[in-house]
């Protein structure tokens, strides 16, 4: 049976209300740290690329 659960869209498995609530809480807690982790990875990759470019330039 296809459910139309608010913003979930068509779904054929039961995601579980409790699961949605805990997932929203977990996502809220983890999001800030995840963004910092992503930015830090981007910064490190940018610096390493600059260093490599510098070395090749010399």
């Amino acid at each position, binding site marked *: 049976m296809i459910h139309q659960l608010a913003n979930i869209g068509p779904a054929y*498995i039961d*995601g*579980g209300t409790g*699961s949605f609530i805990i997932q929203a*809480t977990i996502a809220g807690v983890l999001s800030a740290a995840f*963004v910092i982790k992503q930015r830090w990875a981007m910064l490190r990759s940018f610096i390493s690329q600059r260093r490599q470019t510098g070395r090749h330039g010399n």
Partner: protein
Amino acid sequence: MPALASSFRDPSGFVYEREGVLYRQVNEVYRSDYNLLISSGLYRELVDRGLMVEHEEVGPEFASSTGAAVVLRPERIPNISYPYEWCFGQLKDAALATLEIQRQALARGMWLKDASAYNIQFRGGKPLLIDTLSLEALPKGAPWIAYAQFCRHFLAPLALMAQVDPRLSGLLRVHLDGIPLDLASALLPWKSKLQPGIAMHIHMHARAERTSAQVEVSKPAPRISAVGLAATVDNLISVVNALKWEPKGTEWADYYNETNYSGAAMDGKHRLVRDLIDEISPKPSLIWDLGANTGAFSRLASDTGAEVVAWDVDPAAVELNYQQVKKDGESKILPLVQDLTNPSPSLGWDLAERDSFLRRSSPDLVMALALIHHLAIGNNVPLPKLSAFFAELGEWLVIEFVPKQDSQTQRLLRSRLDIFTDYSETGFESAFRSHFSLVRKVPIPETVRTLYLFRRIG
């Protein structure tokens, strides 16, 4: 053509077989998701990385019923296995493959609408998604619909195997939709509540499920941003990666050291087994190695070019075998956990969703080396019943008879009455000749054991 017995839950489509070829019908309701899967480049990316089964589109004349938007002919996976037959490492790799697929999907505006461990199979030693229709367009702001399923199918059994006992994967055989989180939470040690990942995804998750009954039914699901979804998947990857289990002492880890085999005898046995396999014509393409332990003879069998399924009752031996498969990139060996005294039954709806051990595939050759004494004496199975069992499995049989004088058989008889009056070479041959013809019999040098090559009658 009727759908396969396991393919009925998802209205997006189904799998069926026609003249021995596997097809997947994509129904009209899934057409836009299928188009996005292809146009976004996600399908190609996952196939190229070996994370998803490849298919080719075929004409509408191959459709099974009306309502087909597209018909696919997917690559067939040679040996189907189920999560309750995987060792810890296999379940962990399957979990990580699922999460990587979800990560890649999120980056392309899609997600996994289900995260069933049964959607993963092992091909060439690596896990891949076999359900093409599992990926759909990401509904904006929605929490991951398959989050709880992922936790039940992967995280809970992995945590239980790592932190309690690897044999708890057997719970997946009882709970086909994954281990209920309240059960996992009750079985896990208290210290797991101090591990943030397990505390959140299992203990708090189980509590939230318990209390959710009081939530108003009409209340919409909470919204989660794309960053929130990506952060959850990223965290699940870390939590799964942190779960580790290494076999310490295994039932059979020291088996080869404890047998009465000298180095020369073991070399001799290797040569003899290889000779017997080489005698089989046509060359076997699928071999089942029963009681494979860590896979020494499975490797020898796979060297002949055959696919080998290496079954063993001990999860630690299967783990060691799987780690070897990964380390050496052995694509033709599939190690699996199986208790032959109580093999995997047919399970699920109408007892037809998951095939029993006997209905899985049909090996050309069955190898049963250093096994018969465990079944006949360790489990009291009479020799005629063993003969009938092996005859049901495959046409050819390489079997080692381990007589009562052998130290390993003596060990089994040490603390019990010897009621096995028929257990002798004569009794064995007489029992097996009722289903097989004897092709060759060779004593293993420096031992009291004998190797037999049998061919099924009829």
